[in-house]
C-alpha cells in the first residue's frame, strides 16, 4: 500500500500540528487582506471535511462520494437557526423572509427546534453522525463495500439535493438559504466578528487534525487500517469490521457537519450547488491530491486545490475544468499516495544511503580510482559510512 501505515512519529505529528496552527492562527491573519482571509476561512471548511475523508477513505478504504449530504445537513441546520434568529431580531414575526415570499407565511414544525441555539449546535454534529451510523450499519453489516458503497453514497447525495430543490417553500429550493445578518447575536457585517469567525474555523481545523493524529496512533486507528487492507483477516481475528467502519464513517460525517455549519456564516449562503454530486466528489479531489492516508495531506490538498481553483478560474474560467480533470487523472494514475508520498519519497532518497554508492561501477568503468568516488558521495551521507 502507499507508505504502509504512514504514521508520523509523535514528535513530528505534534510539530506539524503546531506549524499548521502557527500558520493559520498567527501568520495568515497578519499577512492576508480581509477578503483573502475570508476566502481562506472557506477553504478551511473544505479542509475540515477533508480530514474526515482522510479518516474514512484514506485509512478506512471507504470511498464516500456523499460527504455533501453531511456538509449540507450541518450547513442547513445552522442556516435555519440563523434565519429564524434574524427573523426575530428586527422585532419581526419570527418567520424567515423567503417563507413569506414563497410559502404560506408560517414556519413548518420541523423548523421550530432550530430556534434553540443549543439544539442547533447539537444537531450540527449529531444529525450527520446519526445518519451515517444508521447508513453505515445498514450497508457494512451486509458486507456491501467498495464500489457498491461509493455508488450508494453518491445516490444518497443525489436524492438529498432533489429533496432540497423540490421543497422550495421550506428549504429555499435552488436559491438555498442566504442573507444572514447575525451569528448568535453578533453582527456578521462587523469585520471584527468576521475575524473571530475565521479564528473559530481555523481553531476547529487544528483540533480536527489533532484528533485525527490521536486516532492514528490509537488501537482503533490500527484496526481501521487493518480493515482497509484485509477485512477478512480482521473478521477472523474476532473483530467486527462493520463496527470499525461505521465509527470512522460517522466521525467523517460529524466533521463534515461541523464544516458545513462554519461554511454558512463565513460564506453567507448554502445552496444545493454547494453540496451536490459534483461538489461531493470535488471534496475527494483535494484529499487525493494531498495524500489520502496521511495526517496533513488531506488538509494541505484541500486548501491547495481550492486556492488553485479560485486563482486559476479567475484568470482562465474554462482552463480550470481541464486542469482539475487532468490533475485528478495524473495523481490517481501516477501518484496514488498524493503529494505526501512525493515528500516521503524524496526524504527516503535523502536519508537512506544512496543505492549506487556501495558499488561504484560508473566510476570504475571510467577508470577513476575508488577513493575519488567515495569522496563524491553526498554530504548528507553519514561520515562513518564513508570512512568506516
Amino acid at each position: 500500500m502507499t507508505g504502509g501505515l504512514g504514521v508520523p512519529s509523535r514528535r513530528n505529528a505534534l510539530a506539524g500540528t503546531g506549524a499548521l496552527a502557527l500558520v493559520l492562527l498567527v501568520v495568515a491573519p497578519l499577512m492576508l487582506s480581509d477578503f483573502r482571509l475570508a476566502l481562506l476561512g472557506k477553504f478551511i471548511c473544505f479542509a475540515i471535511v477533508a480530514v474526515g475523508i482522510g479518516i474514512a477513505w484514506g485509512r478506512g478504504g471507504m470511498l464516500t462520494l456523499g460527504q455533501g449530504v453531511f456538509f449540507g445537513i450541518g450547513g442547513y441546520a445552522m442556516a435555519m437557526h440563523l434565519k429564524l434568529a434574524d427573523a426575530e431580531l428586527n422585532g419581526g414575526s419570527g418567520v424567515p423572509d423567503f417563507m413569506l415570499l414563497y410559502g404560506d407565511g408560517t414556519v413548518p414544525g420541523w423548523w421550530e427546534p432550530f430556534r434553540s441555539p443549543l439544539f442547533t449546535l447539537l444537531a450540527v454534529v449529531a444529525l450527520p453522525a446519526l445518519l451515517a451510523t444508521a447508513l453505515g450499519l445498514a450497508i457494512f453489516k451486509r458486507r456491501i463495500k467498495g464500489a457498491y458503497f461509493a455508488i450508494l453514497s453518491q445516490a444518497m447525495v443525489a436524492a438529498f439535493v432533489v429533496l432540497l430543490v423540490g421543497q422550495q417553500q421550506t428549504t429555499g429550493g435552488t436559491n438555498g438559504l442566504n442573507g444572514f445578518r447575525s451569528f448568535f447575536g453578533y453582527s456578521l457585517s462587523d469585520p471584527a466578528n468576521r475575524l473571530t469567525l475565521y479564528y473559530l474555523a481555523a481553531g476547529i481545523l487544528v483540533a480536527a487534525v489533532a484528533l485525527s493524529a490521536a486516532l492514528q496512533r490509537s488501537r482503533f486507528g490500527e484496526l481501521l487500517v487493518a480493515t482497509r487492507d484485509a477485512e477478512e483477516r480482521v473478521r477472523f481475528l474476532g473483530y467486527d469490521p462493520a463496527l470499525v467502519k461505521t465509527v470512522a464513517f460517522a466521525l467523517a460525517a460529524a466533521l463534515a457537519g461541523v464544516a458545513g455549519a462554519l461554511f454558512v456564516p463565513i460564506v453567507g449562503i448554502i445552496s444545493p450547488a454547494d453540496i451536490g454530486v459534483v461538489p461531493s466528489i470535488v471534496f475527494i479531489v483535494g484529499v487525493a491530491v494531498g495524500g489520502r492516508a496521511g495526517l496533513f495531506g488531506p488538509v494541505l490538498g484541500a486548501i491547495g486545490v481550492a486556492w488553485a481553483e479560485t486563482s486559476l478560474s479567475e484568470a482562465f474560467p474554462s482552463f480550470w475544468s481541464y486542469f482539475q480533470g487532468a490533475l485528478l487523472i495524473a495523481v490517481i494514475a501516477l501518484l496514488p499516495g498524493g503529494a505526501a508520498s512525493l515528500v516521503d519519497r524524496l526524504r527516503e532518497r535523502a536519508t537512506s544511503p544512496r543505492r549506487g554508492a556501495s558499488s561504484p561501477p560508473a566510476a570504475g568503468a571510467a577508470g577513476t580510482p575508488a577513493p575519488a568516488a567515495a569522496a563524491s558521495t553526498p554530504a548528507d551521507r553519514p561520515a562513518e559510512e564513508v570512512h568506516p
Partner: protein
Amino acid sequence: MDVIGSQLVAGVSIGSVLLLVAIGLSLTFGQMGVINMAHGEFIMAGAYTAYVVQQILGDAGLSLLVALPVAFAVGGALGALLEQLLVRHMYHRPLDTLLATFGVSLVLQQLARDIFGAPAVDVRTPSWLQGNVEVLGTVVPWTRLFILGVVVVAVGGLALLLTTTALGRRIRAVVLNRQLAETSGISTRATDRLTFVIGSGLAGVAGVVLTLVGSTGPTLGTGYIVDAFLVVVAGGIGQIRGAVLAAFGLGLLQAFVELSTTASIAKFLILVIVVAFLQVRPQGLFTVRTRSLA
C-alpha cells in the same frame, strides 16, 4: 383503471430510458468491476453526435437513423481510448478508476462546453415520431415507443451476442472466473477491451435516443449517471436480466410512488427502497455464483 394504466405506461417509459443508459454500464461494471464515471459523458457524446449528423444531413428522420450507428462508433472509440490509456493500468484498483474516470468526465464536459457552447443545442424530432398514440387508454408520444423499440433491439442484440457468439462465451467466461479463463487460453486483455468498446458504444446509442426526450447540453450525462448506477447495483452485476428487471422495476416504482406524492420525494423514496432491498439481497437481484472469496 385509467390511472393504473397511465402509470404503468409511464413506468415502462421511465424504465426503458433507465435500461438504455444502464445497459452499457452493466456490461463494463459487470465484466471488469470498473466503474466508469465518464459513461455519462459518453452518453453526452452520443447526443452531440446526433446533433452534428443532423447539421450535416439536414433531414431529421434520416439523420436519426444514421446517427445511431455513428454514435455507437463514437462511443466505442472513446471507450477504446479510455481503456487503452487509463483503465487498463488500474484494473486492480477499482475505486481509483472511479476517481480517474471522473477526471475524464470533467475534461469531456468542458470540451463539449468549449465546442458547442454551454446552452443546450436543438435536435429536431423527425416528423414520423411526432404525435401520439393511445396505449392502454393513455396517450403516449411516439418518441417514447421508439425508445422502447431501441432498447428492445439493443438489449436483445446484446443478449444474443453474449449467448450465441464465441466472443459472448469468452466474455461470460471472464466474468465467471478470470484466472480460469486465462489459463484456458482466452485473451482476457482482448476480451476486456472489446467489452469496454461495446459498453461505451451502447452509451453513444443511448445519447442519440435521449435527444428525443430531453435537452442536449454538456451536463446531459450527469443527470442520468446516478440512476444508471443504481440500476446496476440493484440488478446485480454480470447479467443482463438483472439490469432489465431492475430498470423496469425502478421505473414502475417511480411512476407509482409519484402518484401519491411529488417527484422529488419519489426519487428519495426509491433510494431508501434500494438500500432496504440490498439488506435482503446484498448482491442485487441476480448474481453469478462463483467460488471466489469476495
